[in-house]
């Protein structure tokens, strides 16, 4: 199995729908930058963070966790069997984090100062740590992506017209990068895993400082641990889900065997997460808030069910070996983690004085959906340009010969 660029037609009815969603988001994006946050969002002085921080940033970072979990599995634990999942996961993480960064630019009031944390440090701030780690990790992800670019373009550079003179130097640069990176890539791979561990957990620390403003069902000092565990838990389900959707969309044969083997690792991770989550609930005796059965309690129950059901599903051999079974179980985990982030950042945030309970405005939802739509469109375009998605080896002798000839070890 080898990763190659997809040959498929780009436009489908779905792409048309996604384009409309993206354009709709763009309209509201323009309003946000011309008239300010108040014109688009339902945020106020009592609810300063809403959908964009909860979903675009917090959930976005969690759902991009496949990048570091797969890197840890394949490169650090050397489980080469799973090598095929590395590229799609890496690319999803790269794209995901890029959109997280874009969402941050949209959400912060002074977007033109977004670079400030790089030079103005506050080591006490959990947000500072999250910000710095995300910036550095994004750079690491871009570096890890370079081998895919070099593989695609070495000896294939073909500028036309006035730019012809660039062909040689660019090709040389690509070859140089390829050579150097194959020697140093392990540094970046480990750094990526460390950085992810740090900021995935620190995202949980973010809400600790809100203290009593957070509903006690979610406010716990082990929030960072819960965030890290749930991020690790959602990494593989994201990879599985994505791979199955891509196979369906591009008419490829799904790699059900690899994905099933991956699936068997998920239940223990969810199990650990649930053990901490439920243990925390009993130690802090917060189950009495669940028994109130108010709206917050129901959101908590929903979140727990969405994680508990896939825990059972992933324990069953039959389900993990079936394509629809593993897909549904994965979707459960993804929704569970998504709802957990929404709960932590939006539902649980209920300050002492809060006259209007926050619900995202149409504009906020439009921009979030627009970003998701744009992400899918860019994903589709990139997998057609770059060798990302693994495919079976029919009539591709040239590619095999090429990768066989490479003397240096291929990391990515």
């Amino acid at each position, binding site marked *: 199995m080898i990763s190659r660029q997809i040959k498929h037609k780009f436009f489908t009815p779905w792409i048309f729908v996604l384009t409309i969603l993206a354009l709709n988001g763009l309209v509201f994006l323009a309003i946000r930058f011309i008239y300010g946050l108040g*014109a688009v969002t339902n945020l106020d002085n009592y609810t300063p963070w809403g959908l964009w921080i909860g979903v675009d940033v917090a959930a976005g970072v969690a759902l991009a966790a496949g990048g570091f979990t797969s890197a840890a599995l394949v490169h650090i634990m050397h489980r*080469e*069997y799973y090598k095929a999942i590395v590229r799609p996961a890496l690319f999803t993480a790269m794209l995901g984090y890029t959109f997280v960064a874009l969402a941050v630019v949209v959400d912060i*009031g002074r977007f033109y100062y977004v670079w400030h944390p790089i030079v103005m440090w506050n080591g006490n701030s959990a947000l500072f*740590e999250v910000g710095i780690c995300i910036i550095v990790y994004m750079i690491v992800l871009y570096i890890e992506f370079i081998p895919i670019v070099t593989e695609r373009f070495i000896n294939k550079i073909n500028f036309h017209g006035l730019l012809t003179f660039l062909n040689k130097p660019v090709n040389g640069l690509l070859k140089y990068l390829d050579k150097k990176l194959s020697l140093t890539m392990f540094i970046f791979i480990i*750094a990526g895993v*460390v950085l992810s561990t740090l900021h995935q957990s620190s995202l949980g620390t973010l809400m600790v400082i809100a203290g009593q403003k957070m509903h006690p069902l979610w406010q716990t000092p082990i929030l960072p641990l819960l965030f890290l565990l749930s991020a690790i838990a959602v990494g593989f389900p994201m990879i599985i889900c994505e791979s199955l959707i891509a196979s369906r969309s591009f008419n490829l044969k799904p790699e059900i065997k690899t994905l099933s083997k991956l699936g068997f690792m998920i239940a223990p991770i969810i199990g650990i997460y649930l053990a901490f989550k439920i243990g925390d609930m009993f130690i802090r005796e917060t189950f009495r808030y669940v028994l109130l059965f108010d709206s917050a309690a129901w959101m908590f129950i929903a979140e727990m069910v969405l994680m508990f059901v896939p825990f059972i599903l992933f324990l069953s051999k039959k389900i993990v070996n079936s394509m629809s079974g593993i897909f549904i179980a994965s979707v459960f985990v993804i929704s569970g983690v998504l709802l957990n982030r929404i709960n932590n950042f939006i539902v649980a945030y209920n300050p002492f004085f809060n006259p209007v309970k926050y619900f995202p405005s149409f504009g906020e939802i439009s921009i979030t959906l627009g970003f998701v739509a744009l992400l899918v469109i860019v994903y589709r375009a990139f997998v057609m340009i770059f060798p990302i998605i693994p495919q079976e080896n029919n009539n591709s002798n040239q590619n095999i010969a090429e990768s066989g000839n490479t003397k240096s070890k291929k990391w990515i």
Partner: protein
Amino acid sequence: MKDINRRDFLKTAAIGVSMSVFGTKFLKASDESPSGYRIGILVDTDVCVGCRHCEWACKVAHNIPTASLESYSDNSLFKEYRRLDAASLTVVNEFENEKNPSLPVYVKKQCMHCEKPACVSACIVGALSKLEDGSVVWDTKKCIGCRYCMVACQFQIPTFDYDKPIDPQIRKCDLCYDRRKTEKLPACVSICPTEALLFGERDEILRVAKNRIKRKPDVYINHIYGEQEIGGTTWMYIASKSFDNLKMPPLGNSPAPGTSESIQHGIFAYFVPPVTLYAILGTIMWLTKRRSNENKENRIEFEQEKKGVDT
């Protein structure tokens, strides 16, 4: 102990202000409280008559457009509970007085200037800082408008210009930082006609507050709001009824940034944990590589699997 009169206070205050401004050093939230001069302001809600002159003076001092002082005598505003916004850094609210219905309780609201401010701890770029005199100020040159200070503040004080696309500000009381440069008292304190606001050294102010409660135990409840709340605040309140009924959030005595900062510092203690993690992962990487080279089981399994898929 004798109650200190207003003039004495102004004198010590003026000295304190000059000291605080000239010796300004920026402190981190987690630092120990210094022993030097700390501002304290007492709000005696029993003395306040609800004239709202402080609101007017505050707007004038901060260049916020406002109507004339006369218009502030309109009492109909008290019908609804008001909060701070980008154009009001302080507001006065009216509450029912069960003991004497003809004399309602008035409570001024503004930034409390915590001893251990959560906003200063939270701010991603350190745009909020606690000065040595105890005041908490905001730096427009640093702020990125992320509003994490608003998430962190237990009193829900900082506000944000949601309607400004360019240069929106985080706004809150700065204890009239600009006025204090010229040794003036904060605008609200200096305009207050009934001495409901008492400005001075924090310990001294606390003594006065305790005295007043002691002298009139039938009037005041025995609680100085802000003495202990989340590690103590610069602004402190005494009142004739429970602060829960004056819409002051019931807060514990442990500083708001405490848990968050200890987690942060635990994860980042001299970069030891991240570096250790890096080393551990590197070792695992090296060990598993050796193993996978020694017995090529993985590889063979991989080849077989590949054949299985191919056929």
